[in-house]
């Protein structure tokens, strides 16, 4: 979509039709004044975040973030500890709802649907926006039941045979099937760290999500297990939208197509990963990724 430069220097986009278009244009103008460097938009967004603020009690953790998350893309979120990247990630499937003092304002839409709409049921939302955490957290159940749990509670399978298929497909997509197919009845907690993380990814996949959020998914893994997860992320991109928070800048450079740099709760810069890691536009981004952050 073509950008249009307004007389006052702000950037508007071509009008679409209906109310959404007006909201988009208005928020675009605002976003330019909010100071994120780079293009917050993508041509084909799965999720759109506008003017997102997060407060923990009186303390504001996230400030006025506008960001599109594109379909079948990996977007990585980087920044120093406490910059708000994980907090922002958790907004995307309303995980922050579980924290009493946390308040989220602004608008986050998935495929045009406001995910903070009061009438929206958060359970199916979290199935469509799955999450993988820093530390692998398999249920204390068999490998099979770890995967089958979600489809069962969401009523996604009609019979045992269908459930078997879901388990097999999910484990295959997560690159774990060959390693565990002969021991599906054994506890998931008995797997290695890397296998457990892939089990958690398979568990997220089993409920047919649109988006997978990953919060430092490799920080507890060795380099080989990390490489396997990174390879998996690249394969999953074909079918899913992935947002990953990582402390490893090399990992962000390797796995993502877009990179967002956060600093003190603000989205400082977002852009193509190739651009961010070769010629970032904002001084703070450059200082961070080149190790000049004091």
């Amino acid at each position, binding site marked *: 979509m073509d950008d249009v430069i307004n007389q006052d220097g702000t950037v508007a986009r071509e009008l679409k039709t209906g109310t959404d278009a007006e909201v988009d244009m208005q928020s675009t103008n605002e976003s330019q004044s909010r100071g994120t460097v780079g293009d917050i938009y993508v041509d084909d967004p799965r999720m759109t975040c506008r003017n997102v603020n997060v407060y923990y009690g009186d303390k504001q953790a996230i400030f006025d973030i506008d960001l599109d998350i594109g379909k079948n893309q990996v977007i990585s979120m980087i920044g120093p500890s406490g910059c708000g990247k994980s907090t922002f990630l958790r907004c995307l499937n309303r995980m922050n709802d579980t924290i009493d003092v946390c308040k989220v304002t602004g608008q986050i839409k998935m495929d045009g649907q406001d995910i903070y709409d009061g009438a929206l049921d958060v359970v199916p939302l979290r199935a469509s926006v799955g999450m993988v955490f820093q530390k692998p957290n398999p249920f204390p159940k068999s490998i099979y039941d770890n995967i089958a749990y979600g489809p069962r509670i969401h009523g996604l399978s009609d019979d045992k045979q269908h459930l078997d298929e879901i388990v097999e497909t999910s484990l295959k997509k997560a690159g774990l099937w060959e390693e565990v197919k002969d021991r599906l009845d054994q506890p998931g907690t008995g797997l290695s760290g890397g296998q457990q993380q892939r089990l958690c990814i398979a568990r997220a996949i089993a409920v047919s999500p649109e988006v997978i959020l990953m919060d430092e998914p490799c920080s507890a893994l060795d380099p080989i297990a990390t490489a396997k997860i990174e390879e998996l992320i690249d394969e999953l991109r074909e079918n899913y939208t992935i947002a990953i928070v990582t402390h490893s*800048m*090399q990992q962000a*450079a390797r796995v993502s197509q877009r990179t967002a740099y956060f600093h003190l709760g603000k989205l400082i810069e977002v852009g193509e990963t190739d651009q961010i*890691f*070769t*010629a*970032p536009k904002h001084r703070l*981004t*450059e*200082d961070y*990724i*080149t*190790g*000049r*952050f*004091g």
Partner: protein
Amino acid sequence: MNEMTSGHTVKAYNQELETINGLVMELGGLGIDQLRRAVQTLKDEDTKAAGQVIDRDQKLNEIDIRADEEIIRLIAKRQPVAKDLRDILTVQKTIADLERVGDEARKIANLTIHFFDNGKTPPGNEILRDIYSMAEFVDEMLVQSLEAFSELDLHKALDVIKRDEKLYEEFRDALRRLSTFIMEDSRSVGHAVDIVLALRALERIGGHAKNIGGFVIFLVTGKDVRHEDLNIIAAEIADRL
């Protein structure tokens, strides 16, 4: 130490970048010196000094190799990104160009030996004059390109690129004058061919200086301006000038 090399949390990284940037300046200094000495040997008809210039080229080759070793180590150890990555790539390319400046200076020194140590009548001063004036011109370009590199000065970088166009005109003019010499006295054909090679060597040195100007623009702005028209280059970096 400039903004390209300083400021890392890991201070050894600053030092490593400083080292490879220092090698550019060292090699640049030697390249300029080789050029001046080579041209001087021609003026002085000093074949012994020309031999020394040729021998000294080995020192430039050694710096070239050392820079490559340092760069490989640095990339493996630090996984550079953004301006660090651009700095390292710029150093590597600049070093390669400066090493070739040394090669071109060596060609001129070889010419001194060829002219004055082969028992034949050497060329007169008149026919060599263009070599001296072009040498001064490329000397200034080379100095300016190294200043642009060390000071991260886009003005100087752009100016060197501009001057390369002027250099090419000088080269064409010199060739025209050589043709006149040949037409006036056909015995000067042999010398004229050798002088063309010397002028060509000098023109190449100017080309290397121009390349360095382009690398500096890439280093500072992240824009690759090689093979682009001068006006486009100027427009692309206008916001940084």
